[in-house]
């Protein structure tokens, strides 16, 4: 396996690679603009937004934040272990990382189920349109991240993983954390 150190101080080699960081910035800008539009829309009908947002369960949001943050911690640990060439531990911590992502998806599914059961579906009102689109796209990112991590797990097992790939996968997974850290306060807490 390739574990040679990369000079991250070079502008072209941020941890995870320049293409991954361009993707991360574009994703953050896209979600950021959507959240700003959501905040602007709330000014048109603040009472309706307040009423709709009160149907969201902040506890679910907070617990999901903890799941993703803990998963992100274990992702960072996986990269550290890989750099130390302890592939067995790297693989073990990667399993915990993926478990955190799965827990996030389970709780999110439970939340979605409750919303659908109470009729707060896409098209219910402007707030819930934003809620479904923003959290839905985020869930897609988490699913894609989990698939990437599964491939990484496979290459770790086969001992064909390279440091660039491990760091790029980790950067994508952390991006899911970053997006959620913007979504959670604005959707669940601010209104």
């Amino acid at each position, binding site marked *: 396996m390739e574990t040679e150190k990369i000079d991250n101080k070079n*502008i072209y080699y941020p941890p995870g690679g320049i293409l991954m960081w361009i993707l991360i910035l574009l994703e953050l800008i896209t979600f950021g603009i959507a959240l700003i539009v959501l905040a602007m829309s709330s000014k048109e009908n603040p009472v309706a937004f307040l009423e709709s947002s009160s149907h969201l369960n902040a506890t679910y949001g907070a617990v999901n934040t903890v799941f993703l943050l*803990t998963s992100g911690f274990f992702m*960072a640990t996986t990269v*550290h272990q890989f750099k130390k060439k302890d592939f067995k531990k790297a693989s073990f911590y990667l399993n915990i990382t993926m478990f955190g992502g799965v827990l996030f998806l389970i709780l999110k599914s439970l939340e979605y189920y409750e919303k659908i059961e109470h009729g707060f579906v896409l098209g219910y009102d402007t707030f819930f349109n934003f809620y479904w689109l923003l959290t839905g796209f985020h869930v897609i990112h988490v699913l894609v991240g989990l698939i990437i991590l599964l491939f990484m797990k496979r290459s770790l097992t086969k001992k064909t993983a390279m440091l660039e790939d491990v760091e790029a996968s980790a950067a994508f997974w952390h991006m899911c954390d*970053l997006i959620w850290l913007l979504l959670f306060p604005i959707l669940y807490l601010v209104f």
Partner: protein
Amino acid sequence: MVIIIPNFIFSILVMQKKDIYTLVGLIILTIITALFATTFNSMKYVSIIILTLSIVKFVLVAFQFMELKKAHSFWKAIMIIYLAIFLIVIGVVV
């Protein structure tokens, strides 16, 4: 299992103190933010405080877990500029 668990905890504790402190800080900030939002939701500047705490969490994840602290200053600057613009615009709108 009895052998694996202490070994697993020990290896994390030894090698990644900074990451552990960051994780604990992030969880504490998440709890504070959620409690603050539910307790003082009628206060005037509560939204700005919640958003600022969330931006602190964002910076901790980006710089510590994503190792942005080791990257070229261009990437650090671009992330800080993004966050500053986002916070200002959201702060003005909300």
